[in-house]
């Protein structure tokens, strides 16, 4: 059903300008990265800055290849990634359900509000010792730490979005005799979709924080473990490599959420 249209010359000019600008932005982005890597490589190669303290791009590549060949790269990445994904999924899911319950029950929302505020401002890392004692020094503790960090923000963001739905739309639904479940599925949920996706994006970052923090506390494996271990033995190559891999994994996860958002927007248009 797309209409074919002939555009005026001025419109073509406008489009060209728009495209040129976009290309320029992309080019600049790539050049900054390349410049940074080249500078890093050259400065460390001629020992203008110490390659021991700063590592270097070529050494990082070497380390990645080494880790990959020994199977450690996949092993550690998989552990951290699975902890992050599990924490992300459980916290987002349960957070959503709790937000729904608190939206549904005015009474519960008012009762629990101060508790949420306190839990939100508490630095979750402070609970580290308790978590280790309860869950042992393993993956369970890490996932729990991850959930703890993600879930409170999820509840607060989504609940806030649920309660900010236009009162007049709700009045309309009520005048039609809608019950609360209908109001939720027909109004609240579609109205909050954008905020829910935004929360997912925030949760990607938070769940990585949770998993790495958990690994700092207790782990014997994972990218957080590599970071701590590398730091302790002054192997900066390892530290930098783990950081790079983290960067890559986190952005992949972010793009997955962004893709999900695109699909959903298409579905709703």
């Amino acid at each position, binding site marked *: 059903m797309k209409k074919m249209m002939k555009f005026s010359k001025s419109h073509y000019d406008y489009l060209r300008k728009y495209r040129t600008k976009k290309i320029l932005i992309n080019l600049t982005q790539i050049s900054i990265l390349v410049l940074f890597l080249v500078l890093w490589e050259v400065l460390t190669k001629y020992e203008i800055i110490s390659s021991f303290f700063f590592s270097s791009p070529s050494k990082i590549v070497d380390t990645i290849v080494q880790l990959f060949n020994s199977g450690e790269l996949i092993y550690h990445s998989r552990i951290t990634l699975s902890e992050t994904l599990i924490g992300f999924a459980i916290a987002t899911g349960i957070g959503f359900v709790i937000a729904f319950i608190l939206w549904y029950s005015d009474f519960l929302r008012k009762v629990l509000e101060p508790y949420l505020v306190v839990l939100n401002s508490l630095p979750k890392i402070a609970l580290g010792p308790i978590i280790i004692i309860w869950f042992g020094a393993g993956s369970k503790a890490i996932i729990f730490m991850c959930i703890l960090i993600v879930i409170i923000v999820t509840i607060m963001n989504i609940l806030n979005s649920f309660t900010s739905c236009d009162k007049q739309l709700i009045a309309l639904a*009520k005048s*039609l*005799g809608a019950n609360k479940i209908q109001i939720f599925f027909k*109004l609240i949920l*579609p109205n909050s979709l954008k905020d829910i996706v935004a929360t997912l994006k925030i949760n990607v970052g938070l769940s990585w924080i949770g998993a790495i923090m958990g690994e700092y506390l207790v782990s014997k494996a994972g990218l957080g473990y590599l970071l701590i271990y590398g730091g302790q033995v002054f192997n900066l190559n390892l530290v930098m490599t783990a950081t790079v891999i983290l960067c890559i994994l986190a952005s992949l996860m972010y793009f997955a959420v962004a893709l999900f958002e695109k699909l959903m927007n298409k579905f709703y248009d």
Partner: protein
Amino acid sequence: MNDILVDIKNLNLIYQSIKSETKALEDINFQIKNQEFVSIVGPSGCGKTTILSLIAGLLKATSGEIKVLNKTPNPKDDLCGYMFQRDNLLPWRTIEKNIYFGLEIKGQKNKERKEYALSLAKKYGLKDFLKKHPNELSGGMRQRVALIRTLSLRPELLLLDEPFSALDYQTRLELCDHVFEIIKSEKKTAILVTHDIYEAISMSDRIIVLSARPGKIKAIHKTGFKSDMSPFERRKTDKAKILFDQIWQEIQNEKNDEI
């Protein structure tokens, strides 16, 4: 006895809030006949909208009796169709799906009902807009969609709560004519709440004037226009001017009493 659609007797309403009790309506009595068009006017805050909410069953009276078709009103019945000042179209739905919104809530989204809703939409000039989203339509068009959404539930009684007041003057006059025509040709009964006296005069058979809070019935006027006159034509008559002066004076006196 089916001729009387709405019957209100000795109606009182007191609002409770933490700081005080507010008497909103006092001893309201009136009846509305089938296919009659009645307007309610009065100073702001006099309880006009409250009466509509009571008739729709969204509020409970403190004392007194309301019957719509001899039954106590309940929003679950399909007797009343409510139309608001704002069109309240859902921005993420197309016009067609917005029209079905009421049917979905009532669990009546079957083929026959959908076809009826679509036929209304087509009959009243929305045919080309069905696949569009609300933000692509003008205010007047959107309000028309809201009316079709309401009518698709086949209500006996339309409750119009200042449905034109958010529109610009030009659109308002046009839409008045349209809505009037639609309501007459679908043979519906309607209650219009408005603060625009001319709007009330031009559309209704009777006008109820309420006093300042607590709202009491101060006067009821019959307009007595011929039924084939459009609201626009009615506005221009001398009769409308005389009625306007009369009602204006009544409302003005109320305001002065308040001061």
